[in-house]
């Protein structure tokens, strides 16, 4: 059976690919970065216009403190905005990239915050010829809301420390998530002192309005997309578990059904955040990609049993209610520009790739899939993949084994070039653990694939 570029492929096993539709709204990374930069310039100009005179060390320090404070306050709300799960951003930038931006911005913001506290205290102390410690205590005691802000800052530092990769590895996702929620509290605590003690806002109503508007808009987005929308979707779609199937010793597929699922506009390659309403699993929301296109009022996810939660999936009973928010992710056919496509997946990263393999338009020979795994038993959905590949004329390469067994890095530039002729002219979709995708990206670039043609999604949030 052949398929041409313009014809949708109908897989043999009866799951119909969705008909093409106009792409939903996407906001790409460039406009967002430009917007964030413009906001930062506006914030700095607020300081510039409010400052009439600077002379002497105390002034230098105090003003540096004010600027870092403004940047920290701006940074904090931008960080929240990135995580608001705004669909246009999720589609245009991608969840994993947003998360990386959030992590980088978080480090920067916490640094600005700490610098702000220290510089202001030091600056005031120099001007007043008092000790820095005494000045700090005086600020906390006598200035309105500074005590709350200090508590908020302490919270931020703790959250920042706990979010460092080294610390995160040592704690459960649930514990980390709970601590991270403290960010909302920290921001609320720090907000008050910005108006009551901040020299740039005191008595400056327009600035206060603009700042409040910024915070208000982001808060509204957060509430809408993270709280209201999942609830709305739950009522609208009434998703339930239809059944589960063990794909292998450790791998389970969960079939879900619901109403009006086409309204979700879920594209192959995207994922949802799933909350299974069981006594043991209701409080956690985990991201899993769709492992098959949405069709016939049915969705499917395929999950490797890693950790306690996934064990719970195998035990899901049909009829269990599910709250799913999404779809998220920019890892879709929408970003493809070339006729030739290379799909590289490892571990659980194969699931969105399997969906893309089925639905990406292409002629025989256009699509290649590389599946990296340590052991044969790690290969998930293998039968399906081979069936689809056979039907489509797509090539599949399995790279199984450790590096020693394979005699080197199977995903190095040279090896890739050898495996995939004309590598430079491919769009590459890459999905797997962060370390693997990072290394493979390097290889691809080394092999001459342009950065813009590499699309990747990492599953370490």
């Amino acid at each position, binding site marked *: 059976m052949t398929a041409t570029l313009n014809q949708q492929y109908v897989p043999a096993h009866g799951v119909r690919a969705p008909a093409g539709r106009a792409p939903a709204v996407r906001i790409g990374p460039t406009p967002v970065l430009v917007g964030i930069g413009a906001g930062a310039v506006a914030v700095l100009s607020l300081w510039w216009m409010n400052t009439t005179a600077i002379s002497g060390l105390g002034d230098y320090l105090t003003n540096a403190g004010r600027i870092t404070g403004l940047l920290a306050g701006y940074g904090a709300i931008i960080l929240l905005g990135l995580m608001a799960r705004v669909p246009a951003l999720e589609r245009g930038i991608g969840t994993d990239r947003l998360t990386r931006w959030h992590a980088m911005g978080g480090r920067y913001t916490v640094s600005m915050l700490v610098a702000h506290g220290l510089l202001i205290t030091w600056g005031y102390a120099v001007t*007043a*010829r*008092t000790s820095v410690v*005494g000045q700090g205590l*005086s600020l906390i005691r*006598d200035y309105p809301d500074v005590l709350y802000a200090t508590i908020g800052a302490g919270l931020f530092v703790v959250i920042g420390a706990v979010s460092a990769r080294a610390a995160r590895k040592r704690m459960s996702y649930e514990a980390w998530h709970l601590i991270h929620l403290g960010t909302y509290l920290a921001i609320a605590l720090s907000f008050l002192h910005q108006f009551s003690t901040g020299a740039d806002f005191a008595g400056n109503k327009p600035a206060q309005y603009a700042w409040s508007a910024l915070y208000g808009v982001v808060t509204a987005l957060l509430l809408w997309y993270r709280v209201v929308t999942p609830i709305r979707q739950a009522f609208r779609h009434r998703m339930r578990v239809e059944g589960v199937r063990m794909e292998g010793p450790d791998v389970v597929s969960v079939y879900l059904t619901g109403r009006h699922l086409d309204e979700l506009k879920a594209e192959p390659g995207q994922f949802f955040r799933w909350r299974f309403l069981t006594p043991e699993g209701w409080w956690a929301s985990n991201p899993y990609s769709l492992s098959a296109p949405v069709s016939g009022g049915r969705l499917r996810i395929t999950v490797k049993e890693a950790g306690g939660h996934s064990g719970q999936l195998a035990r899901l009973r049909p009829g269990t209610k599910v709250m799913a928010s999404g779809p998220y992710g920019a890892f879709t056919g929408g970003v493809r520009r070339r006729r030739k496509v290379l799909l590289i997946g490892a571990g659980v990263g194969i699931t969105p790739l399997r969906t893309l393999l089925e639905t990406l338009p292409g002629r025989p020979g256009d699509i290649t899939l590389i599946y990296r795994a340590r052991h044969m038993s790690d290969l998930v959905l293998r039968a399906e993949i081979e069936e689809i590949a056979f039907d489509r004329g797509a090539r599949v390469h399995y790279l199984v084994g450790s590096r020693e067994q394979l005699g080197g890095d199977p995903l190095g530039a040279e090896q890739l070039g050898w495996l995939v002729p004309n590598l430079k002219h491919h769009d590459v979709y890459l999905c797997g653990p962060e370390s693997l995708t990072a290394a493979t990206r390097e290889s691809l670039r080394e092999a001459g694939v342009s950065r813009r043609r590499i699309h990747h999604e990492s599953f370490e949030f």
Partner: protein
Amino acid sequence: MTLTVAAPASGALLAALSPATRAPGPGPAAGKPARRVEECMGTVFSIDVRGAGVPADVLDAAVRRLHWVDATFSTYRPDSVVSRLSRGELTAEECPAEVREVLGLVREAAAASDGYFTEAPHGFLDPTGIVKGWAVERASDMLVAAGSTSHVVNGGGDVQLVGESGAGRPWRVGIAHPLRPRQLVAVVSARDAAVATSGTAERGRHIVDPHRGGPADGLASVTVAGPRLAWVDACATAAFAMGLDRGLAWLESLPDVEGLFVTPNGRTQHTTGFPQWGALT
């Protein structure tokens, strides 16, 4: 020297002129709480009358009294009584009774403080170290004589308190921090008391520069609390001149006053009885 007073208040005023009178006289017309702020003697006087209050004309009279004191005692006015006295144009007997009273207080203070409080700090007769506090005390007495049971008179930082500020609530006097403008170093709570603070020349907005300031054992300020202001004022002035160690010891030796010292680097020390009067902020 003439003293013009409004007729209705004259009885109360005359009663108040005799030294150390605090017995309330027959209260005339209905009093009411009031506040007054008046510029005088190169500084600002604040009067806050609460409780039963006093008639408005009594308040006016007290204010006029302050101006009279200014005119009489000011060493900046060459025609004031004190200036003429210091030039020898008048003898003490020719001066008003009040001037003699003040001079007597000055001598007492000088004796008690071993000369650290002196009537001629700059080489000529200058009782200003005590006059302001004394004037405030007198003004307060006038209000008491007119029936006030609760008021504070603050003359440029020297305070005389009568009664309490509200039901069961003593007056709270903030002690200005000499090094941090518009901040407090302590709060004194008291009824029927006086608080005076002595410091280096008027600060304004400036913060004392310890490298420009006085000798090593110098002080930024001394606050003294006691029953009556003229005496307390003199004690503060003397203790300030004495410096930290000597001043502290001297105040400890006096039975009815307590003191708080602030050094140029912000350190505070107080006499053992001070905590009964107030607390550091």
